[in-house]
């Protein structure tokens, strides 16, 4: 059994002191331990941004790629070796901005991945610009008069795209988040965990306090996560009250189950060479 301590990498996180990313990292390590994953059979794929430095801080395999593309990379890794537990770390810009189309497609494909999105409603690493999830009127360097675009609602999008595990966590509640990630890892299919993650440097509106005042645990309200219509209602809730926890959960065939080639075992472990002579014969 791996402990969170054993999962600590030698690299020291360089996030700002007090950043929500620290508690997400702690929760990820805790969840990997709780779910009983073997580190060498775990792979964390990330894109670009503050969030995406996370793979370097966990002693598992990792892939720190390019902006917006962790989902296609992770999808192929999972299909190429489905014995691996693949966790995707992304941010609101990475996943819902530049990588939005991959997000919708990964959800509809129901790839067996755990997708954790550090959602701080701002671009942090590029020093404070508006993000797809910034609230209407939100002022940044690029929106000095306030954002004029309505925010993207990732949970609603995931539901519309046929998501099978749609949830929200809060970096200010690491115990809850850790449990949520365990559920996500155990889920067969794509598990979306959108995490409210305060950026303590560039977002002076959506602070720990701001989220804390609004967040409430759905599990305490009798919400039925198998009720899609109820989930749609809860996914829209964003104001004085914001639900956290599992909004929707359902079992559906996963992407890898639909690939005939994988029935013979992980693709990466199958013999390489195929016989092309019958194919050549067909051209004669």
């Amino acid at each position, binding site marked *: 059994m791996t402990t969170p301590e054993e999962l600590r990498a030698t690299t020291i996180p360089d996030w700002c002191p007090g950043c929500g990313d620290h508690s997400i990292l702690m929760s990820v390590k805790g969840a990997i331990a709780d779910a009983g994953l073997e580190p*060498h059979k775990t792979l964390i794929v990330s894109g670009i941004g503050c969030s995406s430095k996370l793979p370097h801080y966990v002693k598992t395999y*990792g892939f720190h790629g390019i902006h917006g593309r962790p989902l296609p990379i992770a999808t*192929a890794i999972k299909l190429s070796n489905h014995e691996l537990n693949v966790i995707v770390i992304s941010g609101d810009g990475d996943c819902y901005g530049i990588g939005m189309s991959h997000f919708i497609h990964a959800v509809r494909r129901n790839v067996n991945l755990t997708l954790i999105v550090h959602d701080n409603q701002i671009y942090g690493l590029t020093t404070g610009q508006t993000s797809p999830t910034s609230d209407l009127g939100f002022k940044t360097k690029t929106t000095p008069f306030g954002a004029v675009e309505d925010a993207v609602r990732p949970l609603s999008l995931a539901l519309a795209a046929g998501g099978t595990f749609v949830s929200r966590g809060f970096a200010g509640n690491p115990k809850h988040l850790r449990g949520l990630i365990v559920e996500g890892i155990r889920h067969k299919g794509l598990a979306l965990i959108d995490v409210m993650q305060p950026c303590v440097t560039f977002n002076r509106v959506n602070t720990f306090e701001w989220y804390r005042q609004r967040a409430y645990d759905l599990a305490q309200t009798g919400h039925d996560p198998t009720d899609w219509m109820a989930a749609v209602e809860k996914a829209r809730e964003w104001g004085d009250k914001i639900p956290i926890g599992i909004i929707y959960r359902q079992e559906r065939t996963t992407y890898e189950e639909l690939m005939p080639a994988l029935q013979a075992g992980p693709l990466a472990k199958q013999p390489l060479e195929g016989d*092309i002579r019958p194919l050549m014969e067909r*051209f004669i």
Partner: protein
Amino acid sequence: MALADEEGSEVLSVMIGGQAGYGIMTSGELIARSFSRGGLHVHTDVEYPSLIRGGHNTYQICASAKEVSGIREKVDVLIALDDRTLREHTTEVKEGGQALFDLYATPIDVKKSIPDLKGEVVPVPLSDIVKEKKGDTVMRNTVAIGACMGIIDYDFSYLESAIRSTFGKKDESVANANVDAARAGYDFVIDKGKCSVRKRISPVPGAPRRMVLTGNDSVALGALKAGLRWYSAYPMTPASSILHFMAANEKSMGLVVRQTEDEIAAACMAIGASHAGVRSMAATSGGGFCLMTESVGLAAMTETPMVYVLSQRPGPSTGLATRHEQGDLQFALDASQGDFVRVVLAPGDNNEAFYHTFKAFNLAEKYQVPVIIISDRYLSESLTSTLPFDLEGMVIDRGKLMTEEELAATPDYLRYEDTDDGVSPRALPGMKGGMYTANGDDHYESGETNEDPVVRTKLMDKRFRKLARLIDEIPGPKMYGPPDADATIVTWGSCKGPCMDAMLSLNRKGLSVNLLHFVYLKPFPRRPALEQLKKTRFTIGVECNRTSQLDRLLREELKFSVDKKIRKFDGRPYFVEPLAARVEEAMA
């Protein structure tokens, strides 16, 4: 590739044309296969606009007892399934050629509408014959092919065999109906005595069985032979047929084939698969490759083996979506930001497409670099008869891919270890004790992100050190034709075929010309290229682009420039006769 000898080689050229939806593609393939089954060499080209129905499609088939690798401008037999084909292509019919058309689908006063026709008109009631046979209107093409084989006095059995193998797979009754229709067209021209029947080509008895396939087919077979298990792509002409081929063989070859949301996903997925240890590839055309460009650098920085296929079509932008050009060489040579080692190669025919695609996978994995295979509309979609590929001695080389045992014996494993040859041993995710993070940010040998200038320099040098060994595996340009010629054609990629046939035709006229052809363009094979170029007296560059992109590369790498440049960028490949004339003119 064996060269046709210097004796006059008779090439029969047949063109079939009509609207999209008339079955032009199938017809062209049937004609090509009929000739191939008779032991003849064939080479084809297809021209079609970017639409589904209507428009104007042509399929040209050149056949010869000798090898034929370039398309001819002139045709012996024109099969016009519509009026437009007749009007637009009459001037291409040779003196003594024949123009076959549907009697009732064409205006009655045929002669008036085609005053330039130097050949004979052969009206055949294609529609009536189809009606008599109670066949589908689209079967006019089969009747016409039958009639064509009749007027050139070519043994019907070869056409029948081609039809049976094309349609018989689906449904024998379809095959029978088509054989019947073709036979009716054949009999009509023979029996009615209304047109001249002339033996224009003879089968070659005892010739070896040859495949009839495209460059894309050859690339796909080369990839499968190399152990490809993952293929992801987004449809884009002229690369799409690779995707179709892979999808059709997904189950039998145990592949994962994915049509993705865009080319970015296609390339990133292929990188992901390769990272997990699966040989993968992504193919596209120029526009799609623009989207894949960022991933090329990702493969380089993470040192993930990666094979791209860039099948060119004319740009910029959408350009001519279904036409031919070689305008992306300079783009491929430097695509993606930053300095890194890559391999760029451009096969010139089916054999090169097959063997060098296979080699591309070995190079990608041995050196952990991206490899870009450049094709183009002409090579990708032209059918050429080719001997079944000889698979002897083809060995998959996975380079420094570690086993679990090797990894266990390496306590302080560093994924990006600074080695003598610049290539670091590669552990695969899932292996015990190899845990590391592949990193698109520059990094330490461990994979951890690095910002230190000394480490940055060291790791850049490490990645570039791969060149020292890689360059030894890069074949230089190949010289074809007579040694010590007065003039040398210098070309690359798919221009090889038309240049070869133009050279042979000039040699037959007594002109002293040979041909220097480049397949590998990066890393540039400087030494062998210089050796070959030193032997030349007068060089003529032939390229299908506006700015002589190979010449730009020669100037950069060797401070060498060709003496004369022949360029073409009208969206069509070179025809042999006008190319030969231009080379002759350049020599004057």
